[in-house]
Each structure stands twice: as structure tokens, then as C-alpha cells.
């Protein structure tokens, strides 16, 4: 199958199957790719330590102020979306709880909301 066809199929599949499984699948993919990219960014940021503690502290100060401070909330959201969904499908596969996948999804959403509440509290107040 040509890549363009495959990509357009993916797009159509998302549009034609508007259900919980599709949304969590798409989110899982997107957050996964974002996090894979973030690992590299993170290592590059931290690599400032190689030029000494001062430059490390400076670099970290830079990425913790202004817009970056708020982006970090987003980062935590992305991490937990990927993590909770990953745990959910692992549990479904390993324990054969496929019939409960929606219940598990609601459970994940609940945990996610709790974590985000804490995050907002910590970051904004």
C-alpha cells in the first residue's frame, strides 16, 4: 500500500470510527511520538551540565520561566495520558479484560483528572 493511501486511510479511520477506542489510540500515538521527541530534547537541555553546574542551573532557569512554566503543565498532561492509556491497554491484554475497556478508560480519565488537579495546584498556586 502506498504511504499516501495508508495515511489517508488512517485519517478516514479516525473520522469514521468516532468512539472511545479511536480517540485513545490517536492520543496514545500522538503523545507517544511527542514524548519520544521530548526525551531527546530533555537530554540536550540537561547536557548543559557538561559545561559545569552554573550553566546547568542557568539553562534550567531558562526552561522554567515564562511560557515554559506553563508548557510544563502540558508536558505532565501528555506524560500521564500516555502512561495511563498504556497501563490500560496492558491490563486489558494481560488480564483479558477487553470487555471492560470502557470502564478502564473511565478509570484512567478519573485518575488523570486527579493528577491534573494536583498539577494545576502545584504549578499555578
Amino acid at each position, binding site marked *: *500500500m502506498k504511504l499516501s493511501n*495508508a495515511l489517508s486511510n*488512517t485519517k478516514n479511520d479516525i473520522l*469514521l470510527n468516532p*468512539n*472511545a*477506542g479511536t480517540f*485513545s*489510540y490517536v492520543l496514545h500515538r500522538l503523545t507517544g511520538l511527542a514524548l519520544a521527541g521530548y526525551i531527546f530534547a530533555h537530554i540536550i537541555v540537561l547536557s548543559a551540565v557538561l559545561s559545569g553546574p552554573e550553566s546547568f542551573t542557568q539553562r534550567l532557569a531558562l526552561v522554567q520561566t515564562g511560557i515554559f512554566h506553563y508548557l510544563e503543565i502540558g508536558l505532565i498532561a501528555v506524560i500521564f495520558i500516555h502512561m495511563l492509556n498504556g497501563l490500560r491497554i496492558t491490563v486489558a*491484554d494481560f488480564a483479558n479484560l477487553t470487555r471492560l475497556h470502557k470502564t478502564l478508560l473511565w478509570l484512567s480519565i478519573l485518575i488523570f483528572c486527579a493528577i491534573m488537579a494536583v498539577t494545576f495546584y502545584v504549578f499555578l498556586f
Partner: protein
Amino acid sequence: MTTFNVFRYDPAIDKCPKMETFDVKNERGMTVLEGLFYILENLDPTLCFRSSCRAAICGSCAMHINGQYRLACRTQIEHLKSDTVTVRPIAHSEIIKDLVVDMTNFFANLEKIKPYIINEGPFPEREFLQSEGERKGLDHLIDCILCGCCYGACPSAGTDEDYLGPHALMKTLRFINDPRDKGGKERLAFVSSENGVFRCHTVFNCQEVCPKDLDPSSAIARLKMKAVWNTLKNLVS
């Protein structure tokens, strides 16, 4: 009156598909399939769709109806709770005409898993004796009518036509679970390959759309675990 938005495409004439609108006189209890026949018989005899048993057992009339893959014969218009019925063909297969798609690949994938009992005998003089427990292991796995809803809804099937698909994987478990079948190892190896169970990303769309309310997701999950233990065992020994 119900408005039908029907996907129309004749590859020989049309450059690209279009949606065509028909007004269908809706009687109580009318199904989407009957609606399509109403169009064929009264409004446009060139409309194409497959149908046979009209009792949700042959699997001919699977299509995408109002946001989900369903069997047209089993879907009553009033249950859709909408003034419009939008009908599209099953995805991931080449469109032959209108709602009729080429299911060659769907069946080719099924044939790849050797969908028959692998057992060259000797056979007992009468039937095989099978305990109730052994027979229970086949429950639901054998009920698949091969309509193609799950295949159309599966995003993995959309990106790679070599992915076996939920239908073929569920059939595999049916044979692995059958004590009459002697091909268990071979089957497990086959579904552990790149195009097999591990291409499944646990999206649950197959379970969501199955018109017979089967659970291919569960079959795939069970196959995954079997495949993992089998591989680990082979690596250790």
C-alpha cells in the same frame, strides 16, 4: 420521510466519489437495507450494494451507517434516531461500485492462516469425543459471519493490507482452541510474525462494531499472551 445520503462511485466513470441524496418513505420497522432496496426499486436502479439473507447471518450487507460499521439488514432506521441515514462502503478495500467493495484481500488474509482443521487422521470411527469444556473453548469464536465490519474499523488494517485482521486472528484462536486441530504450534508461529497479533494496537474498534457482539479484541489478547509465553519458552529451552 428519511433522507438517505448514499456513497456513489463508479470507478469507470466518476473521477471521485460523491454522496447522493434520496428521500425514502419510511415505514415502521424499516431497516436500512430495505431503505436501499426502496431506492433501487423506485428511485435509482443503478445503485449497487450486496445483500442476501436479510437476517444478520450471511454478512453480505456490512457497511458504514451513521458513524459506525453495521449490517444494513439488522439496523432499523428508527433506532438510528436521526432524520438522515448516511451510508458508506466498508473501508480498507477497493471500491468496485457504490457500496460494493472488493473483499479479496479480506478473504486472502483469512486463507493465510489455514482456516481448516489440520489433522490428517487417523480419525475415530465415529465422532471425536469432546468434553463440554473443550467445546466451550470454541464458543463465540465460531460465531463470526465474516462480514468485514471489524476489518473496516481496524486502523491497523488501514495502513497495511498484509495485517491479518481481527477476523483471521479470531479464527486462528478458534483452531488453536480446538482439540481436534494439530496445527497449534504452526498457527502460533504464524500469528506471532510481523503481520500477526502484534500489529494490533488494542483499539477495540473490532469489538465495538461487531454486529454479532463477538470480541475479537479478547481473542487477539489471548493469542498475544500465548505467543509471548511460547516464544519465551522457546528462548529459554
